[in-house]
């Protein structure tokens, strides 16, 4: 492993601890900060890794789902007789077969029946499930189910859904759930408004009244699919009075809570196990097919596996499409006076996590800037399309496309360099972006300088255009996390926590933190995670929170283990003194050193036993202020445009990973590269398209194009480590930030290269070609 391969910002690593916290400035203990290889890399590339689809159980059955061909319809009747009689079929299940199950789930707004209950609200919604001895039989039986629908008027466009006469999806508002994570009441200004969030301060009218320059525009961000290589897969089994579900879920504890409610079980009787996961990107956050899989197992009286295809996964969850209408007022010196915006999200047929996406989009539209007056209204709107939910970036890509486009539009109007305009408005370190918020924990001006240097700002080749854009996300979700560190009598360590390894590298990074904190070799730390019956609670794996918040919980658990061990050493090895002195990996008593294993063995009196260290994190102490941290994005881009075809060529991308302290620089860089490429996909090609009838036109990987390696430009990931985060050794979250500014950066760079302003992503060749023609006709 070559640490020098990883380019960190050494010159700026001046360790500006905000409160002069000495512990935060001290160099982290190895292996923290080292680019060690992924713990799961070998298993994944050799095929040794077992995903849910690889697991089996005695008597396992297989399920397939019948899906609605209509965007909106009443389900008049379902005849399952012939399907149930088909040889090899174990059970056919509809909502009518589940009187003992609480059908409706949803952590924010409970509005989602686990299977259509009298009505379908989007084409592709599950209407019936078949459980059979094998998949082919289940598939055959689907054709034998007869469903009579009464089609209803439907609406696929969010603006149309807000019209007074629009078809109504949900006759009554869904129940608000305690996990909703946003403060607003669900405003039912229109029955298709799923949620409404407002972020506002200052006198907006006064701000626009004295503006020297106002930029105004409407920006459209596409309906996208967070393609993960592993589609949703779950396996459920009822036994011994309880329910066990193996699933590809990011938040096993959230899924557990929903399952307990659906099946009327205590939390302790529900076990959710997450083995290897083939990518999440937010799409596997919260509950998906787990309640339905469990309901099928309940009626089949056998274990059941439901493995969706990619086509079905696209119909299960997607990202929120956004129309952002925004105007920003500047004074003559380029200082922002105010920003006024309306965000309309096309959130699909069910709330899922869109209410929180709407909330976060409102919070994130201001960006990392000092804005005296702000007014953002953000709506999550029901439409007859596949439900939208969390998607990497979480409202920030949609908001940042609008906000950062306007910064460059304003710079041109003001005759200012686009970076200089940003510098004049960036929040200073420690400055809260809004009242009662945590102070800003980054130095984005320094990040801009880094990006400018790396990109060669101002020295674009002829025909090329450059841009650098930034973003800020209030991240980390809730600081509710626990961890257990067990030190065995041979001194090896088991780390137990509820964080899910979804490819982001938490299995490696968290083990590094435990190894560093306990002073043991990384090879002697074993990581056990995401089994609600075996490890302790973690709220979620999302919002870029794991390294920071689980990292803090692990630090606390390690501290607890070490404190107990020091006490045991004193009690057993030196009851009469001298005082035990803690050392890396053990204790020193006089001139003798005892490692942790020796202390355990001495205390239990034989070669057995262990110590259990516990770590708890809540809104208290360093994590009392919200958000727990800000996630930053800073992306520089160099493009050229083919004037004949309208094809944009992205030649180079620079990302600044402002992560405070990279626990594993190699993984931190890889996260930024992945996020930037994902952003490139939505900026350039990715968009789910619905036709007038409410059918998804390109719900497959032939027609929906995610980036290939041949689409990836030269990538230059840089890390900025100023130890200014709340996490271990000043760490703060990364992995989403590099996605957020990409669309705006491309649009701004294209403006410089070709003199056209793109406000609708993705920037397909035809959209660019039309803009070029319009430019030429002016």
């Amino acid at each position, binding site marked *: 492993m070559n640490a020098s391969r990883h380019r960190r910002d050494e010159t700026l690593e001046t360790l500006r601890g905000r409160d002069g916290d000495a512990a935060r400035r001290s160099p982290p203990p190895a292996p923290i900060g080292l680019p060690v290889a992924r713990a799961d890399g070998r298993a994944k590339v050799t095929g040794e890794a077992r995903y849910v689809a690889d697991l089996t159980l005695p008597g396992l059955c297989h399920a397939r789902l019948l899906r609605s061909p209509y965007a909106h319809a009443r389900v008049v009747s379902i005849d399952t007789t012939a399907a149930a009689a088909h040889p090899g079929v174990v059970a056919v299940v509809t909502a009518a077969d589940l009187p003992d199950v609480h059908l409706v789930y949803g952590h924010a707004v409970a509005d989602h029946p686990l299977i259509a209950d009298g009505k379908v609200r989007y084409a592709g919604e599950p209407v019936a499930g078949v459980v059979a001895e094998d998949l082919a039989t289940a598939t055959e039986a689907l054709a034998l189910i007869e469903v009579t629908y009464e089609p209803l008027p439907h609406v696929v466009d969010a603006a149309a859904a807000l019209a007074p006469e629009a078809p109504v999806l949900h006759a009554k508002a869904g129940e608000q759930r305690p996990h909703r994570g946003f403060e607003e009441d669900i405003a039912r200004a229109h029955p298709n408004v799923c949620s409404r969030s407002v972020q506002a301060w200052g006198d907006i009218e006064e701000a626009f009244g004295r503006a020297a320059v106002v930029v105004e525009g409407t920006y459209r961000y596409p309906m996208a699919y967070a393609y993960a290589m592993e589609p949703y897969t779950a396996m459920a089994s009822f036994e011994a009075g309880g329910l066990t579900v193996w699933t590809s879920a990011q938040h096993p504890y959230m899924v557990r809570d929903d399952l307990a409610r659906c099946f009327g079980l205590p939390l302790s009787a529900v076990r959710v196990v997450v083995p290897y996961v083939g990518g999440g990107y937010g799409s596997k956050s919260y509950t998906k097919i787990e309640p339905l899989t469990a309901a099928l197992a309940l009626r089949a009286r056998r274990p059941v596996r439901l493995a969706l295809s990619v086509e079905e996964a696209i119909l299960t969850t997607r990202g929120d499409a956004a129309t952002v209408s925004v105007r920003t007022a500047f004074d003559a010196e380029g200082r922002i006076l105010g920003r006024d915006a309306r965000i309309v999200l096309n959130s699909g047929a069910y709330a899922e996590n869109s209410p929180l996406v709407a909330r976060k989009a409102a919070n994130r539209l201001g960006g990392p800037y000092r804005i005296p007056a702000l007014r953002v209204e953000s709506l999550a709107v029901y439409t007859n399309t596949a439900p939208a939910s969390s998607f990497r970036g979480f409202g920030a890509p949609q908001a940042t496309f609008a906000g950062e486009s306007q910064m460059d539009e304003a710079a041109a109007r003001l005759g200012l360099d686009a970076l200089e305009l940003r510098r004049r408005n960036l929040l200073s370190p420690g400055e809260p972006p809004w009242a009662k918020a945590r102070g800003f924990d980054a130095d984005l001006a320094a990040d801009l300088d880094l990006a400018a240097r790396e990109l060669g700002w101002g020295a674009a080749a002829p025909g090329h255009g450059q841009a650098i854009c930034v973003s800020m996300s209030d991240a980390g979700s809730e600081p509710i996390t626990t961890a257990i560190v067990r030190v065995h009598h041979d001194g090896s360590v088991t780390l137990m926590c509820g964080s899910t390894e979804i490819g982001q590298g938490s299995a490696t990074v968290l083990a590094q933190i435990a190894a560093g904190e306990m002073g043991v070799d990384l090879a002697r730390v074993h990581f056990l995670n995401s089994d609600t019956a075996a490890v302790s609670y973690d709220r979620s794996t999302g919002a870029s929170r794991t390294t920071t918040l689980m990292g803090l919980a692990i630090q606390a658990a390690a501290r607890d283990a070490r404190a107990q061990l020091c006490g045991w050493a004193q009690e057993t090895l030196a009851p009469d003194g001298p005082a035990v002195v803690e050392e890396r990996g053990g204790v020193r008593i006089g001139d003798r050193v005892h490692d942790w294993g020796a202390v355990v063995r001495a205390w239990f009196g034989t070669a057995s036993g262990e110590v259990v260290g516990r770590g708890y994190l809540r809104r208290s102490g360093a994590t009392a202020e919200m958000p727990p941290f800000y996630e930053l994005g800073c992306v520089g881009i160099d493009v050229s445009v083919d004037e004949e075809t309208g094809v944009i060529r992205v030649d180079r991308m620079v990302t600044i990973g402002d992560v405070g302290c990279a626990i594993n620089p190699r993984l931190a860089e890889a996260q930024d590269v992945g996020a930037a490429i994902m952003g490139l996909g939505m900026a350039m090609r990715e968009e789910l398209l619905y036709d007038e009838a409410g059918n998804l036109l390109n719900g497959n990987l032939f*027609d929906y194009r995610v980036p290939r390696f041949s689409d990836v430009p030269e990538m230059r990931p840089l890390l900025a480590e100023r130890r200014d985060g709340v996490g271990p050794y000043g760490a703060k979250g990364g992995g989403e930030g590099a996605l957020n500014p990409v669309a705006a950066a491309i649009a701004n760079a294209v403006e410089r290269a070709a003199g056209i302003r793109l406000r609708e992503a993705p920037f397909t060749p035809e959209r660019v070609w039309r803009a070029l023609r319009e430019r030429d006709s002016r």
Partner: protein
Amino acid sequence: MTIPRFELHVPTSVAEASELLRRYPGEAVPYAGGTELLQTMKLGLASFEHLVDVKRIPALAGIAVQPGGWLRIGATTTHREIERSALVGERLPALRLLERQVANVRVRNTGTLGGNLCFAEPHSDPAAFLLAAGARVRLGSAEGERELDVDAFIAGPLFTDRAPDELLLDVRVPPARPGRGHGFAKLAFFERPAASVACRIDVAEGAIADARVAVASACESPVLLERVGQTLVGARGADLDDALGAAVEAARHDVETFDDVNGSADYKRHLVGLLLRAAATSAYEEATRA
């Protein structure tokens, strides 16, 4: 995605395969690479109870130059085999260039030229090339054989002139010779191309004596634009650019494009013009190369 159950037959002769296809009318289909067929079955767009695997039939395999200089490509030849064939590289470099860009390497390793033509997919680049090249196909059944132009074989989108019990045996491309050049150009923004144009130009005594232009992807079915080729005839050196301009206009006028995820009909007409210029230019260069 689950593939419906089917029975697989592996005949070793054309007569045997034809007999199987005839035995299960409407239920049997020839199967070669399966890159289109199996996908269609998985998506539930087609179902067949009998798949007749034609890959073990020797008469359908191989690439060879026939007497008279015609290049024969057996129906079960994979895209990858064509891409890597020295014979193809020597005689039809534009076809090699085309094959190198077909889908992705997994599809090219499995998918066959015959399967591609028989499926009559609107986005078939090989069909466009073969149309422009004036290629002919041979069909065979238990009854005998017949030969027809690719143009006559491709009857419409996803529809060919092949009878249910017939097999496509091979494709024959007219001889490459001095004064003849082939060109191909395409644009792909998604998995399937937005537009592809193939061109064959014959030059005699310094002027274009014959030109054939075919388009795929942008239109409902790969199509030969006969009038467009004619606009190039007679052009030489200095006035080539004017002739190309006229051909571009003619192509944009004559091609019947449609809206889809790749873009609107308008935009695709624009692309066809751009691609025609590129394909015709490289065909002319090849034709006039000493």
